[in-house]
């Protein structure tokens, strides 16, 4: 069971959230210009890393807002929570070195 820090509501149980898959996938600016292979990449191909994964969650039974989470897919440890639209950086190595609590508080303040 995950304890997820919603950037707006604070730490809540996983059952309040819904998962949104890999984060930072940007819809093509000019969809009609894409080849079939580029569409396949956007629609279907995923990083699926064994390690740090940046992913979207929505606080479905709370504030109903989306946000991004950086989570380790083996330990399930949540390394960082940050608002939608924010840059993916700091990169995984930097985030791992930081205490997760500090980075979450940074987001909430």
């Amino acid at each position: 069971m995950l304890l997820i820090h919603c950037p707006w509501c604070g730490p809540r149980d996983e059952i309040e959230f819904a998962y949104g898959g890999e984060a930072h996938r940007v819809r093509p600016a000019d969809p009609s210009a894409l080849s079939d292979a580029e569409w396949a990449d956007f629609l279907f191909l995923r990083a699926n890393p064994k390690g740090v994964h940046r992913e979207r969650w929505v606080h479905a039974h709370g504030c109903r807002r989306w946000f991004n989470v950086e989570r380790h897919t083996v330990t399930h440890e949540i390394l960082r929570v940050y608002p939608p639209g924010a840059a993916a950086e700091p990169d995984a190595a930097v985030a791992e070195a930081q205490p997760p609590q500090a980075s979450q508080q940074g987001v909430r303040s």
Partner: protein
Amino acid sequence: MSNYSIVSLIRNAFSHHEHWGRAWRDPAPKPAYDVVIIGGGGHGLATAYYLAKEHGITNVAVLEKGWLGGGNTGRNTTILRSNYLWDESAALYEKSLQLYEGLSQDLNYNTMVSQRGVLNLAHNLHDVRESVRRVNALRLNGIDSEWLTREQVKEFCPAINIAPDVRYPIMGGTLQRRGGTARHDAVAWGFARAASARGVDIIQNCEVTGLRRVGGKVVGVETSRGYIQAGKVGVVAAGHSSVVAGMADLRLPLESHPLQALVSEPIKPVLDCVVMSNAVHVYVSQSDKGELVIGAGIDSYNSYAQRGSFHVIEHQIGPLLELFPIFSRLRLLRHWAGIVDTCPDASPIISKTPVENLFINCGWGTGGFKATPGSGWVFAHTIARNEPHVLNAPFSLDRFTSGYLIDEHGAAAVAH
């Protein structure tokens, strides 16, 4: 390797069953093989077996990072069935079920295939219509299937609660009598033993750490036990398929999730069929040891941890108790999770790849066990002939570019 028979059983009884030979050889890896299979689960071992048996390719190694069948092969709920809606899936899974029907004889190993019947319940009018449609579709594909009314469901499975005053009352169900269960470990061990007898090297505790390429072509694998040259490489790594494919810079349309299952304490026989319900989402059968084997859906998030969240278990026990109130005082004995590689269209990928000499068999998601022999059979054909068998041609990697998806997720309306 000695043949298992009543004679060998009696002969070994005289020595108190203390001198049975090992079931498969434990060789050190050779420097080179014609084919290297990455992943010693059921599908990988079946691939090696059929490469040797059907195609005469015996210079084969199966590399397993842990122990045989210690991944999803040993973690599933052992259900066999072929009641898939679409023609492509129906043909593939039916081939597999047919292979299962003769598997114990073929392998000379008791895989404990028990065709006790698989019942899929309908709980509302839409379920009923969809189920009847599926029965008809299956029969058109030559697969046994029948529609049972509410009363016939009760007659077939007396322990079930068909009371109308529950949240999701049972309104009938589809039955595949040829469906059932098999002993999952025995399937892995049987394929390993039979493959080994035909000359396949099964190498455990041998983790693949890299794929060596020369000019866009795979030529060998780096492993924890040294470099092994390979003519062809087949990746059958289930939840870790993305990781292994990544070693050749190949991206796959897969996401790895935990799938949890659990067993109750063993009890006397109470349930002699497999019961599945997609609407309330749980499936259950009783093992020969007497434990109820229970499963449902995946945890939502990506994971490689072989464990999931507790609320997912809660959400399968709730429906189970509505279907079978008499199970309410059972204690649970064990629960676990396997890492399943889910595909966007809930159908597998059994295919050549853009990297020459690299083949992939993955994306079985939550329903791979029932396909074990069929998967190995078509994948062996694909590797040996360098082109897919007609049964797995639709399950190619390029269907995600062509758009010819096999969308079982929405269409079959069945839990995998």
